């Protein structure tokens, strides 16, 4: 950073990007080490970022994690296959359904179970509802990081509807244990589909309102545009996935590129920024990807409601195995979580009802590893903006 950057006169505020601070060559300044976290409000949990700053300019950012480590993988080795599901809920607690789905797919692959078609629709509906809820939290807390408090509460008001729906479905609001190996825990209650359809109808205009209040706000754009640009090749090299990767302009979505469940039958777009409002790869792009993915998820839910087969005597437990004792083998199954690719690598030794090894590939953990690259040369305020746009859930980072 200690070099003079090219200076071209800027006429608009938005053209001045944060890393254009001219640090004079021959002036020695003292660096300051600043601990951001583990109780800092902008780290979204118990992450500690050690910042080395020159005034307000960050020279180096090193994330330290592990404050929320709960030995998920070791626990999984001591539990039956079904009993691991509640633990997967607690990894990414904002998108529990999606994580469950990925884990259950791994076990089903191991057992070679065919899941009833209606169950697949049910899983996709809850997973997409969960994706909306998760993106809502991501967008809301991002606004909070930038200093906009009101969108946060507006979004939380709408998220409440999703949580109420899911609570009605399985009794839990965040950690569901809903998707089981070979089925789901409960059938949809009567009128659940209508209520979901009502929610889709209700929520579309609310997304527009949220976009008008937060995303189209000039101040918000000034704060996020051109901040923390992640080029596509760097994103791929670091193994980023989800909105992080799509924000860099890479059209990669496991629902399309490695389709699972009934996603191939559904019509939806993979959202990538077009570079009109944002600079491709910056924090605003990642935010925009999340915003537009909500529309896509609403589309998917609508299609699922229309296509879902009706069966009055449907038993969601029909294909659920009583005792899981898979043959020896290993399997990797992955799903597109709101935060990126979540995969479970399960090894069965063929001897018992417990997995020999259960390795989770967490999207947030991988995405977070780019932080030092992005934070360098930005202001402290921008580190907050970048960290918010990565959208980490510490439960998943630390597992």
């Amino acid at each position, binding site marked *: 950073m200690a070099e003079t950057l090219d200076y071209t006169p800027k006429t608009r505020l938005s053209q*001045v990007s944060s890393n254009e601070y001219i640090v004079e060559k021959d002036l020695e300044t003292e660096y300051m080490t600043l601990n951001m976290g583990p109780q800092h*409000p902008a780290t979204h949990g118990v992450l500690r970022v050690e910042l080395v700053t020159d005034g307000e300019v960050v020279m180096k950012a090193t994330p330290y994690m592990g404050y929320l480590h709960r030995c998920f993988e070791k626990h999984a080795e001591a539990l039956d296959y079904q009993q691991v599901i509640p633990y997967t809920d607690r990894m990414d607690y904002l998108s529990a359904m999606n994580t469950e789905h990925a884990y259950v797919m791994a076990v089903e692959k191991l057992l070679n179970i065919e899941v009833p078609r209606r169950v697949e629709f049910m899983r996709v509906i809850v997973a997409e509802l969960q994706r909306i809820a998760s993106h809502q939290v991501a967008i809301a807390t991002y606004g909070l990081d930038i*200093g906009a408090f*009101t969108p946060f509460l507006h979004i939380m008001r709408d998220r409440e509807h999703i949580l109420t729906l899911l609570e009605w479905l399985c009794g839990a609001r965040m950690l569901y244990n809903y998707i089981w190996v070979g089925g789901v825990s409960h059938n949809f209650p009567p009128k659940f589909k209508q209520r979901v359809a009502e929610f889709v109808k209700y929520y579309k205009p609310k997304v527009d309102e949220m976009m008008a209040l937060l995303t189209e706000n000039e101040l918000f754009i000034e704060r996020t545009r051109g901040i923390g640009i992640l080029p596509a090749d760097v994103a791929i090299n670091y193994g980023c996935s989800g909105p992080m990767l799509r924000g860099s302009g890479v059209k990669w979505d496991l629902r399309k590129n490695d389709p699972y469940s009934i996603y191939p039958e559904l019509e939806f777009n993979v959202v990538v920024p077009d570079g009109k409002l944002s600079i491709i790869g910056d924090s605003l792009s990642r935010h925009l990807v999340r915003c537009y993915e909500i529309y896509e998820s609403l589309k998917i839910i609508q299609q699922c409601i229309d296509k879902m087969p009706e069966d009055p005597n449907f038993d969601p437990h029909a294909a659920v195995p009583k005792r899981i004792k898979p043959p020896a083998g290993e399997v990797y199954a992955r799903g597109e979580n709101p935060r990126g690719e979540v995969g479970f690598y399960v090894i069965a030794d063929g001897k018992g009802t417990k997995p020999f090894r259960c390795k989770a590939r967490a999207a947030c953990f991988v995405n977070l590893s780019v932080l030092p690259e992005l934070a360098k040369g930005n*202001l402290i305020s921008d580190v907050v903006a970048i960290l918010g746009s990565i959208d980490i859930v510490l439960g998943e980072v630390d597992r």
Partner: protein
Amino acid sequence: MKPFALLTPDALAATATPVQAQNSWVKALESIEVFGIPVGVFAIPAIPLVFIALYALYVGVYGERKISAFIQDRIGPNETGKWGLLQTIADILKLIQKEDIVPAAADKPLFVLGPLIIFVGAFAAYAVLPFSSEFIGADLNVGVFYAVSIVSVEAVGILMCGWGSNNKWSLFGAVRSVAQVVSYEIPASIAILVGVMMAGSLSMQKIVMSQSGELGILHYAVFQSPVAWIAMIIYFIAALAECNRAPFDIPEAESELVSGYFTEYGGMKFAMIFLAEYASMFMTSVILSVLFLGGWNSPLPNIGGLALNDWTSGPVWGAFWIILKGFFFVIVMMWVRWTFPRFRVDQLMYLCWKVLTPIALLVFVFAAFWELYVR
């Protein structure tokens, strides 16, 4: 016919309130003595103090909570008392009960004195606020100048808080805050000068009187010159920055600097800082209304036999109007706070030095020519 022919200085002079009737309440208070002790002199500063306390309690705590709740589609406090009206009392009780903690590594004198200086800075400006034609703490002939300069003392207090806390985040907050407050005084002062130039006086009461007349709102400075409204908006923006209110709440940026310079404060010391924030909000609102919106003058005009202006003028009505105008801008500040995200620290400086200051200077020059050749 000349534009604004009705509003020429001659027309104003004819309708202005006679000077000898000014400040009679203050004079009456000053003369009160009990056993040779001038009790009245102490009562004069006590009145704004009590006002600040009541206002910060009910507009600051309760009003802000209810307004933010309305904006955010919530209910707000509704459990403590009828409509949550006792919420402010509960908050104050909580703050009073808190242990008075001074961090072990803090610089104690600075840490303790900081909030006091911040509050004194904000409160001292109330001395020159004309609450009514008959009540002003001190009718200084350099009232506006005094108000601008005494508020700058707050920056010292903020720096003391930030440095004394011995916390890196607080220090960042304090440094940001001082940089911000000092820079925003420049556009604010230039905008104030526009108003002062139009009134031709630095005395608060004279500025207000120059805007009175039987056409009410049409005599206000903001309508007297085609650029006065720009100066008013510049002053309002700069006032937001000076009060450290969102979107300029960078020094206390909750999500970046935890709480900025008052991270380490709790209990009554925190209450002092809180009170100072609300006091300076109202203070800047009143200065804005005095300079551009006629201060304690009634906005209603006399229409033929319907002498609305005469009926709504007078010392008590004056107090009503100025407090109403002050509260209006306080509420606008809250509205702005709950709508916008926060600036980044360099964008804030950009806005001040490259946008507001040049525009303010241009407005100043234009207003000067307008005063000389047109009005």
